[in-house]
């Protein structure tokens, strides 16, 4: 009988959290972010087909050429095509952002779960280690570890895992501390379940939401620090195409040939934007489902 007339009372009563437009039932930022990520993934997979030039081919005749139809993003001081290099760089930078988060996520989650669940001495020991790691400035610690291990992508991932897990450990521990006293944890114990089973099969899945959202925004930070470390010469090594290196390489020519640094810089921004859109959308999606 009553048609959908928006009642003012309902509008007041309904708790209005941050709620963005929906596309196919999902928050719009999530869809947009995932779409952008899919685009980058496609670029990475089909770089050989899409890129107009070989990323390390040097064309001496076309050095520092400004953007044109032949070179839409221009060329660098060795005559390499910026567009092609930027496309091939997606492979490395995507890997950087994802692997640079996966390892810290895995380590931090396990440590946080164990520390939160058992408490006591285990908790104290792990959390003091976390405090020590956090006491150092992030980049300084990263640089120190990479310098010891020797420059390269592998060292970057190891350093990232050694430093990055602390945030996840704290986040998960806080959730587990609450969850371990919850009724369903008691119920699980009443069924005779073992500690690992209760921790990892029942508590952890309930604790993960926050860290998954954090991981997405962490991708942004990892991508930027990966680019920064490559920029400083300790990450990906030239002549490999990586956005951070490309920005660094263009530095000396910034006044004459802005395009060398500008386009890779924009690419970093675009990928970081995609990750933060996903983080926002995921936060909204998971936050309201309780």
């Amino acid at each position: 009988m009553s048609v959908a007339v928006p009642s003012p009372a309902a509008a007041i009563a309904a708790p209005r959290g941050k709620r963005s437009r929906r596309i196919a039932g999902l928050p719009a930022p999530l869809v947009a972010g995932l779409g952008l990520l899919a685009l980058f993934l496609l670029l990475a997979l089909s770089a050989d087909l899409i890129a107009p030039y070989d990323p390390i081919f040097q064309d001496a005749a076309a050095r520092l050429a400004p953007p044109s139809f032949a070179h839409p993003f221009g060329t660098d001081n060795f005559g390499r095509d910026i567009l092609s290099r930027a496309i091939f760089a997606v492979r490395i930078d995507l890997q950087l952002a994802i692997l640079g988060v996966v390892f810290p996520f895995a380590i931090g989650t396990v440590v946080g779960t164990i520390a939160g669940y058992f408490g006591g001495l285990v908790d104290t020991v792990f959390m003091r280690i976390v405090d020590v790691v956090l006491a150092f400035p992030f980049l300084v610690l990263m640089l120190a570890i990479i310098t010891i291990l020797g420059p390269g992508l592998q060292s970057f991932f190891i350093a990232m895992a050694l430093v990055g897990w602390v945030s996840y450990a704290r986040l998960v521990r806080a959730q587990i501390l609450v969850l371990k006293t919850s009724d369903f944890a008691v119920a699980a114990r009443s069924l005779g379940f073992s500690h690992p089973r209760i921790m990892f099969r029942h508590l952890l899945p309930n604790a993960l939401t926050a860290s998954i959202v954090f991981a997405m925004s962490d991708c942004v930070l990892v991508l930027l620090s990966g680019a920064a470390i490559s920029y400083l010469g300790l990450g990906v090594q030239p002549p490999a195409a990586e956005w951070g290196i490309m920005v660094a390489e263009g530095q000396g020519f910034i006044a004459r040939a802005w395009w060398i640094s500008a386009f890779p810089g924009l690419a970093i921004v675009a990928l970081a934007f995609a990750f933060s859109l996903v983080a926002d959308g995921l936060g909204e999606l998971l936050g309201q489902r309780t």
Partner: protein
Amino acid sequence: MTALPLLDVQGLSVSLHDGRETRHIVDDLSLQVGEGEILGLVGESGSGKTVACRALMRLLPEALSISARRITLAGDELASLGVADFARVRGRGIGMIFQNPASHLDPVMRIGAQIAETIRFARGASRREAKAEAIELLRQVGIPDPARRAEAFTHEFSGGMRQRAMIAVALASNPKLLIADEPTTALDVTVQAQILRLLTELRDRRGLSIIFVTHDLGVVSQLCDRIAVLYAGRMCEIGPKRAILGRPRHPYAAGLIACQPAAGATLTRLRTIEGQPPSLHAMPSGCRFNPRCPNAQGDCRSVQPPLDPVEPGHLAACFHQVGTTPRLGCAA
């Protein structure tokens, strides 16, 4: 009751060590539950019903210490078991269901998966067997269209269905004894009646023994075979349902029964027991009920009355039992 009770608890105490003092939350509790018997554990909020049950399952916070002269389940001694061995008693020996099924089920795991996990954990069945059996269990606890409902999450179930699902999880490990801690308190009366019928059916079909914790004497009178009345952590009276409800000996048990409003009775002021249950920090000496007791005399304040038989199978802990000193309205 069979000759050998399924569960035999002797002298169960739960205490809180607080610096200098030791306070007993549950004090020297003894009870037996026979095979296929439903024992109602009755008392006010804070009388130690839940603590006693959780002590049996060793589910209490570490600050509380549990002691008992003897706890046997089907002849097996439980009190002396180590942590690892006791884990096998949980679920398989004694199962437990709780007051609030919404929070006692895993919110991010499908109902069917929770039951199947318990089956696999308790009996090591294959994935497919466990899933089929989970659906069968859901059917047994009266969930319509169980194959489809097994795929649902907790928040998609109604209150009554959640309680049924929780019973199914507890039954999945095939316990001999089920401790039901106020499982119907959060449900409305019609659903409550359905759950009680379900529990009775399970008793009849599986020979399940049940300890049913409640403060609702109406529920007890429907469901239970025997009743144990707890006050401030001590057993006041224990005996067959008819004896306790028909002729209670302990003034507290009598008071509780008198407080029960009868349906269809003319509207009068609800009866209450005067005063409050004692605080853990200020337990009265002697009988813990003496400050509120209409029959209390000098000896009640100094000596703790022992739990003595009034007739076979019916015990009460009171010096001045109801009915022995003739009082109005208490004629036998």
